[in-house]
């Protein structure tokens, strides 16, 4: 048995995928060829989501990243021990140019070989520098950009592993979120957890209107629908024939979060970026060509 000794291009097979032994289907799952459009679409969507997230925060950049704001001392760091120096105020503008410029370059696909690493490094830095304002949105985006940075940047078919890692990330994120709510939390014990959570520090005007207007009996229905979506993610996102249902269900789930929980629009945009990895490749090509008015380079579709 030997792994194939060939390079990754459209005319050659991938790691072990030409072999007939039993593990070949496993290798095919992780390293088989895939059309480049999915990863390219994901890269653009994710970088756009992160760009908007960072842009929103940049209004308070001085508090966020410089000595002008309060920052927990080294002795009392709450979540991790890595001490990262803050940005000197004089360089804040230049750091912003690097961060937002790097992300913009990733969106348009300019010099991806190094701009992806630049954007990733800047995002990692801001995530580590201020522990008080880094959340799951940051963590998912940092890991997603790292996958993109390590993945092939050409649009011809490439090894599918980056797509698989990202797809599984979404499924595991949803499933474990649902598991935590059901097993460790109170979502199965109390039908009004969602109702109570929406009244807290996230509450938007729309959420307040819903709480005032909707009958109390609607809230358990919404709660169990959300929980079912998360727990069933391995099925409706994992099984190809159920994906349309999963994606539409998830889209409404994320849009409701974005509309009823302040600032979680950025979390929703990051999560929705992962959805393009499950969308049919032909549809992605049609959208791509629509945006480029047919001028864009034809991206090869793997049969």
């Amino acid at each position: 048995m030997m792994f194939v000794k060939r390079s990754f291009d459209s005319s050659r097979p991938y790691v072990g995928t030409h072999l007939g032994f039993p593990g070949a289907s496993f290798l095919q799952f992780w390293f088989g060829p895939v059309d480049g459009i999915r990863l390219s679409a994901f890269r653009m969507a994710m970088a756009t989501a992160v760009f908007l997230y960072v842009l929103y925060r940049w209004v308070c950049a001085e508090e966020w990243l410089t000595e002008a704001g309060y920052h927990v001392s080294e002795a009392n760091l709450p979540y991790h021990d890595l001490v990262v120096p803050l940005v000197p105020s004089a360089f804040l503008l230049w750091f912003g140019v690097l961060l937002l410029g790097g992300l913009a370059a990733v969106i348009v696909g300019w010099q991806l070989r190094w701009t992806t690493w630049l954007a990733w490094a800047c995002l990692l830095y801001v995530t580590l520098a201020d522990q008080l304002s880094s959340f799951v949105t940051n963590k998912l985006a940092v890991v997603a950009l790292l996958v993109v940075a390590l993945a092939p940047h050409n649009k011809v078919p490439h090894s599918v592993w980056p797509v698989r890692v990202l797809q599984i990330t979404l499924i595991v994120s949803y499933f474990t979120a649902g598991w935590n709510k059901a097993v460790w939390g109170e979502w199965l014990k109390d039908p009004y957890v969602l109702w109570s959570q929406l009244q807290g520090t996230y509450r938007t005007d729309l959420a307040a209107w819903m709480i005032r207007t909707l009958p109390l009996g609607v809230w358990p229905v919404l709660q169990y629908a959300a929980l079912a979506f998360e727990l069933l993610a391995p099925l409706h996102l994992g099984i190809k024939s159920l994906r349309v249902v999963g994606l539409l269900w998830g889209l409404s789930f994320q849009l409701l979060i974005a509309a009823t929980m302040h600032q979680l629009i950025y979390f929703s945009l990051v999560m929705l970026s992962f959805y393009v990895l499950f969308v049919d490749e032909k549809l992605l090509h049609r959208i791509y060509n629509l945006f480029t008015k047919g001028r864009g380079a034809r991206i090869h579709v793997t049969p």
Partner: protein
Amino acid sequence: MSLSKNDAKPILSCLFFLVFWIVPILYTGLTQRKIAFFPRTIRYFQSVGNLFTHRVDVWPMPYIQVLLAGEENWKTLLEKDYFPMETFGYRTRLFEALYYATNILDYDRKTQATRAEIARWIAKRYAQLNPGALPVQFVRFVAGLHFMDPREPPAGHWQPPPYESFPEEKTYILSSHDVR
């Protein structure tokens, strides 16, 4: 078995994400335990699926109060002057520091130390924002409690009312600090 240079990168990259990301976020998400042998910073990234799990019947609204030299009454500061950034929802970085970055239930050493350093920072910032004003001698963190009640639905988005509007039984002092 032989591996070419071209095969090594996808295999190693994939293995890296399986070992450092997929398996840990699955394990941590299912068990609520972190994998001990990873460094704390890596473990921090591996915790992603633990939001909105419990019912919250009381939402605290934190306020900053200062006692100036020679004054007898506490003065409530505008939080936005000191912590303008909204982090997650309408929460500020002060809210994060008081309720999440420290353990609100256990008034342990680290919690008190963090609050004390925020208090010192606020005193310093107060002097910068109010040149010539009386110096701050004490800083305290107080909270007004917002109870969930279906008979009193919210009128609009989350917006803490003036601290003085809370009845006394719905307020409490988180901690008080001498910053002289």
